[in-house]
Every structure is written in C-alpha cells, then in structure tokens.
C-alpha cells in the first residue's frame, strides 16, 4: 500500500493557513476584538478549522484508498470525545445545580 506523502505545495498551503488561523485567534483575544460567548464560538471555530487544515494538508486524511478505516476510526473517536467532554461538562455543572457549590464549602 503506497503511503501518500503529499507534495511540497500541500505542506506549504497547510502551514500558511495554520499560521493565519493561529494569528487570527491570537489577535482576537489579545486585541480584544470580541468578548464573551461570541469570542468562545469564534475561537473554537478557528481551532476546528485549523484541525481540519492539519488533518487534510499534514495528515493527508481523505487520501487513503477504500476502505477508509482511518477516517471511520477518526470519526468515531471524535464522536466519543465529544460525548465524553460535553457529557462531563453537562453532568458536572448539573451537579452544582442541586448541590451547594463546592468552593463555598471551605
């Protein structure tokens, strides 16, 4: 099975966009162009964009031959990750709803 290693072009494109996205997120915060929930959404979106850029341009996902086990395993991992992180946050903050907040205990 030939491993796809990409061209210099894909590496440079990936690098360029990663830098742009990194600076965009950095400036958003440091220059205080956005605040509150909007900022959070923007930062997460930029992070996810960079994730996709790196997955496609650095990790060459989507370039494998069928059956695309790498992709399937990745998607399932992403699903479980989302469930665990979101689920944990939901549960843990919901625990604080019915209990006294734990900082107040001391």
């Amino acid at each position: 099975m030939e491993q796809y290693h990409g061209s210099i072009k894909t590496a440079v494109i990936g690098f360029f966009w990663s830098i742009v996205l990194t600076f965009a997120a950095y400036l958003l915060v440091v220059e205080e162009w956005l605040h509150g929930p909007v900022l959070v959404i923007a930062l997460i979106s930029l992070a996810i964009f960079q994730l996709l850029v790196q997955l496609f341009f650095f990790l060459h996902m989507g370039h494998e031959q069928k059956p695309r086990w790498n992709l399937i395993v990745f998607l399932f991992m992403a699903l479980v990750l989302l469930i665990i992180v979101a689920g944990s946050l939901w549960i843990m903050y919901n625990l604080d709803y019915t209990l006294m907040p734990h900082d107040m205990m001391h």
Partner: protein
Amino acid sequence: MRHDPHAEADSLTIFGFWVYLMTDCLLFGSLFATYMVLHNSTHGGPTSKELFSMPFVLVETLALLTSSFTCGLATRAASLNQKKQLFFWFVATFLLGALFLGMELHEFHDFIKEGNSWERSAFLSAFFTLVGTHGLHISIGLLWMIVLLVPVMRHGVTPLSMRRLTCFGLFWHFLDIVWIFIFTIVYLMGVS
C-alpha cells in the same frame, strides 16, 4: 496471491499506530474535560489571566507549528530517498521541538518558583497535568527522533525505516493538533 511482506506490514503497522493515536486523543480528551471542569477552581490562587504570558505562548505555538511543517517535509524527503534533505528537515524538526519544550519548561519553572505549582489549586493541577502530558509526549517524540535518525543515517531509507518515519510523522502532527486545542482552550480562553 503475491505475498509482499513490506506492503502488508506497512498497512498493519501504520493503521495500528493510527488507532493508538486515536486512543491518545481520548486520553487527552479526558484531561481536557477535567481541565474544563476545574479551571475556575483557583482556591484563592492565581487565575489563568494572571499567569499566562501570551506573546511567549505565541512563540511556543509557532515553533511547534513550524516543526510540524518541517516534519512533513522530512517524511516527504524520506519517501523520495533524499537523504540530505531528510537530515536537514529532520534536525530542524528536532530543534524546533526542543525549543518548544525548553520554553514550556521555562514557563513551568517560573510558575513553580513563585509558589504556583500543581499543589496550589485544582486549576493548576489540571493545567500542569494537561500541558505536562503534552510535554511528555513531545519529549518522547524527541527521543524517538534520535532513535530513528541513527539507522537512517547509517543504512539509508529502508522500507522499515520509512514505515517508522511515517508513524513518527503521524505522532508529531497529532501533537501539534492537540496543542491547537491547548492553545485555544487553556491559553486563549484563559486570558480572555
């Protein structure tokens, strides 16, 4: 059916390594979830806003990102059997990775010196563990680079070393991806 031991082994090893990386993602995911739950538990100690120096973290981030880029160039050079280019880009990757690690250790040292170690609060425990686990992976990657480079410089790029270089590339890119989320969730959201 022609039996090509290298192609078969490549397919198995690289897929197997990919699956292992998926488990590592979930390990980090658990640490992220914990960080997000505990990041406000500062127990009277410093908050992320008070602690983090953003320009410093930006340089760290760019160093690691660049090393991911040079790593991609290195594996490409290896696949084309360009030994000199491989050496150059690989050493660049190593140096940038070492710079990243050095900066991170410096940051940790500063915090600890001021009494803000992992013992200070749950927030700091989660910070040191999440970022520290990433740093531990980077350290293992640096060691791996040395172990990889020695046989390649001696015997050139064999199918076996190509397979291992590919695995290393996956590992190194994965670490940069994890760092995107640490940068965003821990540092950027921490100071805003």
